[in-house]
């Protein structure tokens, strides 16, 4: 019984807190630009509204158009359940769970791309093509990051991998993972979540035709993914295992906030890159993670 109670508690933390992040980012952007900006809870209002709204389906869409967002949402939530939360550990931990997490993210990507292709629109095809192509480089960077954590802690399960500090490689890893976070969550400089010009977008263009509850599932899933990457980044870089429970929890929350504000700052101060530069930046992220791996290797040998 305790197990289920814990699952429900965790699930509610993840699901309820996730939509806060985009709100904070928008607030930071508004603050930098000298605007008042939408309220921090705006995404909650949007989700509640979308959940009550009707659905317009494209005449070409199959049932997969609605199933895709549902599967993607479950995959992202499942990945979040595998992620340990500082002192609380994770709900379910086993050897190799980190690989399941990476592949659950891939499953979510497949389903989003699939749902985008359902509509037969060239714009959405463009977005889906970009999403799956850039994911190749992002995946390489993530695996390199995970390998470096793995080498450092001699383990392949998230709970033990994420607790110690990463020492000298931490800076490299932080830079690499932050870049991957921006790419995977379709933020500036890879993608502009605010633009309405379909030709230049990745994520937003894939969801052009969604409406009502499926769109709510997509937006909520995207916010869970953002929180997931922020939590991963913070725990991979900071020495959570060496702090007391309360301090670790505080550090985690503060760290996630810092990452969120950082995303907002990047978004305010940078322009979106031209698409041909995107692979270059992702390759840089991969190299940063690879150097972190080398540092971890050397650190362990000495």
């Amino acid at each position, binding site marked *: 019984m305790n197990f289920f109670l814990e699952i429900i508690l965790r699930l509610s933390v993840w699901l309820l807190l996730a939509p806060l992040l985009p709100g904070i980012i928008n607030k930071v952007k508004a603050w930098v630009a000298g605007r008042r900006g939408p309220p921090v809870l705006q995404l909650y209002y949007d989700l509640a509204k979308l959940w009550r*709204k009707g659905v317009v*389906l494209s005449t070409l869409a199959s049932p997969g158009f*609605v199933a895709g967002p549902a599967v993607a949402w479950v*995959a992202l939530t499942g990945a979040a359940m595998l992620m340990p939360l500082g002192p609380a550990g994770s709900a379910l931990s086993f050897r190799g769970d980190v690989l399941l997490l990476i592949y659950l993210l891939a499953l979510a990507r497949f389903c989003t*791309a699939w749902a985008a292709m359902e509509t*037969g629109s060239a714009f959405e095809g*463009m977005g889906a093509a970009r999403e799956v192509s850039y994911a190749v480089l992002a995946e390489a960077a993530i695996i390199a990051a995970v*390998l470096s954590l793995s080498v450092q802690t001699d383990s392949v399960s998230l709970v033990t991998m994420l607790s110690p500090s990463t020492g000298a490689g931490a800076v490299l890893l932080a830079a690499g993972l932050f870049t991957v976070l921006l790419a995977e969550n379709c933020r500036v400089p890879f993608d502009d979540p605010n633009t309405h010009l379909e030709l230049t977008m990745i994520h937003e263009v894939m969801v052009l035709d969604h409406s009502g509850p499926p769109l709510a599932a997509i937006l909520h899933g995207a916010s869970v993914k953002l929180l997931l990457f922020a939590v991963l980044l913070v725990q991979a870089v900071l020495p959570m295992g060496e702090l007391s429970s309360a301090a670790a929890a505080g550090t985690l929350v503060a760290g996630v906030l810092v990452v969120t504000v950082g995303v907002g700052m990047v978004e305010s101060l940078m322009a979106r890159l031209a698409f041909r530069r995107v692979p270059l930046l992702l390759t840089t992220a991969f190299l940063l993670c690879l150097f972190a791996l080398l540092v971890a290797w050397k650190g362990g040998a000495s």
Partner: protein
Amino acid sequence: MTPGELLLLAAVSLVAGIVLGPWLSRIWLAFTLAGATAGLTAALSVLLGARDWEWRSAFSLGGEAVHLRLDGLSAMFLALLCVVGGAGAVYAREYWSEEHYRASAPRGRAWWSALLSSMGLVLLCANGLHFLIGWELFTVSAFFLVTLGRQRPEVRAAGRLYLLASHVGTVCLFAFFSTLAVRTGNWDLGPMREQAGLSPLFWIALAGFGVKAGVFPLHVWLPSAHANAPSHVSAIMSGVAIKMGIYGIVRFSGWLPVPAAAGWVVMGLGATSALLGIAFAFAQNDFKRLLAYCSVENIGVILIGGGGALLAVTHGDAPWGRLALAGALLHVWNHGAFKALLFFGAGSVLHATGTQEMSKLGGLWRTMPWTAGLFVVGSLAVSGLPPLNGFVSEWLVYLGLFDAVTSKGPAAWAATPAAIMLAMAGALAMASFAKAGAMIFLGTPRTQVAADAHESGMGMRGPMLALTGLCVMIGFAPILFWPMVSRAVESWRPAWTAVETPAPLATLGSVHVGLAILVMAAVAGLWRMAHVNGLRRGLTWDCGYATPLARMQYTSASFGGIVAGWFRWLLQPERKMRRPRGHFPAEAIRLEHIPETVLERIIGPISVTIIQVSTSVRRLQHGRLQFYILYVVAGLFALGAVVLLGAAQ
């Protein structure tokens, strides 16, 4: 019944299938299914039991006593052969039916039985000479199956290329087995790890079996053979026949001592095949060719695992080797199941529309819902996505690689790039199948043939459903299959029986089941919510454009454009382009074609050079007697000179 009796029953049924096949299609099907069931039962009884089956007969063939053996490793491949062979036989009755292919359908049935029995023979033979005979029979029956539709010139060309490449491989195998026989004094095969002098033979076996397996630079025959064969033949070629190459590599790296560099080379070949194979796959427009190149990738995944095992052997029997090999062997099964499923799905589409070009299809989910749904399941499995079987085996391979990296030994230098390349190949596989599924089944039909498609009958859907069931079962309950895989690993290297493998497969299986339940609940919930709130159909949003055409959809070339750009150095696309000109542009063209780069740019020129050299040598042979006498005299003088010089020294 003992495995021996079951195998005899299987052999008798298959021979009856060869004899009766051309005339009685129902009875042929019954015999083939009976043979497949008997073979499967024999394989499973060996895999689940503790003892190998071995049979030495006094009867001799070609001067060698018949010696058959079924151990854990060969039983694993035999089980796969029987499952895909049986499913393909059912599929073929509707797909390559008597009424459509009056001449070739009867022939196809007989050759199908011949292919199954010859591959079974290869798996059972424990004598080098008989192995070669079985291998040749298997190659030839596969050739006749590939060329069933031989009216088309491209089918004949593909068949010729396959036969040629196979025989290049067979030449290597002749050299391998005869050298082995000379060194050991007899043709008998079995464990001989202690004879260290035999280890260089591994390289020649790797080349010979590598051609059959379709390892990257040797894969040149594979895409055209798979794309031009009838789909049930493509399914068994890709699902089972190329695995015979893997079987050979795994078998003889287990029985013979291997050189120290073997693990490095095999893992390197595997990683190269995985990444480059899938890069080619993503760029294809012909969906059967895409599936064929994807087989190159999966062979790569299997070889990464196998290379991990070989590395572990040379690094003090590290426990991660066992994980990597288990992952590789489970991937043999998994790839057999989902690739056969995907080729059956491709066949169903081909049957309904008559085209293999994705740019001519689209919107088929409406007319072919079964095929579409099952193809999606196959796509998820082949992309290695949870909760299906592809993920389980890739996960085991990853675990092996990660443990090799964390051991920080020299093996980590191979395992780190292999893990990264495996991850990239996984992401590209997902991209390729998102593309294939979307281009074939989603959107609106791009041509009339796609609009007129029809769902295939129960005879084709049944085998697809069975294979889907297998994919789901291995994904949901991998722990049930672990004892069999582990038995095969032990028969590869008996020293590994004691190594404990801490792979939490049971947890993974229950997570998969939970995930599947949640997915179904979420889909049902969202679907219901959409209906409760009110559902309305409308035009796809195209930036306000109100009359979108089918031709405006994203095509397969445009979907793969970004990645094709990254791999331009490898793919070498051929372009034909005319830009729109003037104020009233009349016509603009952009055609892009991905050639068989390795074949046309590397193997082709080399063969041409060989032919040129041989032709110039042939000028010596012209039929003029006086010149021949001159050769003899010159030869005599030369010999004399050699003898004199030798005597002077």
